[in-house]
């Protein structure tokens, strides 16, 4: 590819911009870019015009490869476009079609130009194809990255949402774990719990694993890590909600859970209340509005 072809192309694009742009936008519309209503025709036209301008600027500098510094503004524009389209929920082919649909108007314009010899047209066609293919691949890549960012963000949000620390009573925290415990989540859970222990001045933390579907050696290890860390902060841990199958698995795996464990959260709460010198008593019905539990805080016995 010589500088001659790219400059030819640059002049051609600037001479025929009025013809290329509407044709291109029309093609994109036909490809269904507007059907979903995520962007308006005005926006599409503006984006197309902007890209055409940047492409022309690159071509005018005489560079044939998309990686050339002359196309940096064009590449950045495409990257932003792909990322925003990924966020808006466009499909990858819709996004890539933005660049690929530019080929046809450019070819048509080349063919219409009587001043060019057939050999020149062929050469220019190759240049355009190579250039736009490279740019098209770039949109794909950026689109993919944009999507990955979305997934990553959602993943983070889920892991934060799914590990609430609940204050059951003064100095007693509960941590209901729902879903599989992997290393990354354990980290979040642990940090969350420890911070709450500090903020609340909690003495006892109940880790409820009713919502954990399976417990393998790794999960057990993660649990024990959390328990140890809480202990280092001066809080005791109780594990509750161990289902029969999980209890069997733990024993079969030979994992030693050197912590107090209770079958249900209620049992664990009872233990926690006793540890903090509190009891739950039922008041006799008739005296008051029924069997409302009463918490007697007789600290210090």
């Amino acid at each position: 590819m010589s500088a001659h072809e790219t400059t030819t192309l640059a002049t051609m694009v600037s001479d025929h911009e009025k013809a290329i742009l509407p044709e291109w936008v029309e093609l994109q519309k036909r490809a269904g870019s507007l059907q979903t209503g995520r962007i308006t025709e005005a926006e599409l036209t503006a984006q197309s015009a902007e890209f055409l301008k940047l492409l022309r600027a690159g071509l005018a500098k005489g560079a044939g490869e998309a990686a050339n510094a002359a196309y940096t503004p064009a590449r950045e524009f495409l990257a932003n476009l792909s990322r925003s389209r990924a966020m808006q929920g466009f499909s990858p082919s819709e996004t890539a079609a933005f660049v690929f649909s530019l080929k046809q108007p450019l070819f048509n314009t080349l063919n219409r130009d009587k001043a060019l010899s057939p050999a020149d047209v062929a050469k220019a066609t190759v240049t355009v194809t190579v250039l736009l293919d490279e740019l098209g691949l770039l949109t794909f890549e950026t689109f993919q990255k944009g999507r990955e960012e979305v997934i990553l963000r959602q993943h983070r949000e889920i892991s934060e949402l799914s590990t609430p620390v609940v204050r059951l009573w003064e100095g007693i925290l509960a941590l209901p774990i729902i879903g599989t415990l992997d290393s990354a989540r354990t980290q979040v859970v642990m940090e969350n719990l420890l911070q709450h222990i500090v903020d609340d001045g909690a003495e006892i933390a109940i880790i409820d694993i009713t919502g954990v579907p399976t417990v393998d050696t790794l999960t057990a290890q993660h649990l024990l890590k959390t328990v140890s860390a809480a202990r280092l902060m001066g809080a005791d841990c109780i594990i509750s909600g161990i289902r029969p199958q999980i209890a069997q698995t733990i024993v079969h795996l030979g994992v030693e859970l050197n912590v107090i464990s209770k079958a249900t959260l209620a049992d664990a709460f009872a233990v926690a209340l006793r540890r903090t010198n509190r009891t739950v008593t039922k008041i006799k019905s008739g005296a008051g509005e029924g069997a409302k539990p009463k918490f007697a805080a007789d600290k210090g016995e």
Partner: protein
Amino acid sequence: MDRIPILKLGDALLVTIQVDMHDRLATALEEDLTTKIVAFGSKGVLIDISALEIVDSFIGRMLDNIAAVSRILDAETVVVGMRPAVAITLVELGLSLSGVKTALNVERGMAMIQKRLGEVDADDEG
């Protein structure tokens, strides 16, 4: 050389670590503390590490050592005020300090030691 001050509070000793520990300081503290426990006949040691932001395995082991040594000298060690990040680091290092008692803050740590002292007194009387 810097030394970490050791305060006597009744039957207990209070150590507040305010600076980042380096290895020499840690060894010095271990020695000083042992001497003071014997000198005062202390029954409890309270180590406040709420200002400590960085721990390594050496400091972790030092805490374990102090606890072991004090136990031999009939004093109970309570480590108080550990920061969440420090706790996570120690656990990741595989140091769960199983021989050390812990409490959230100095107040609670003191209460733990007082409780033990009460029990010891009761034993002596009974």
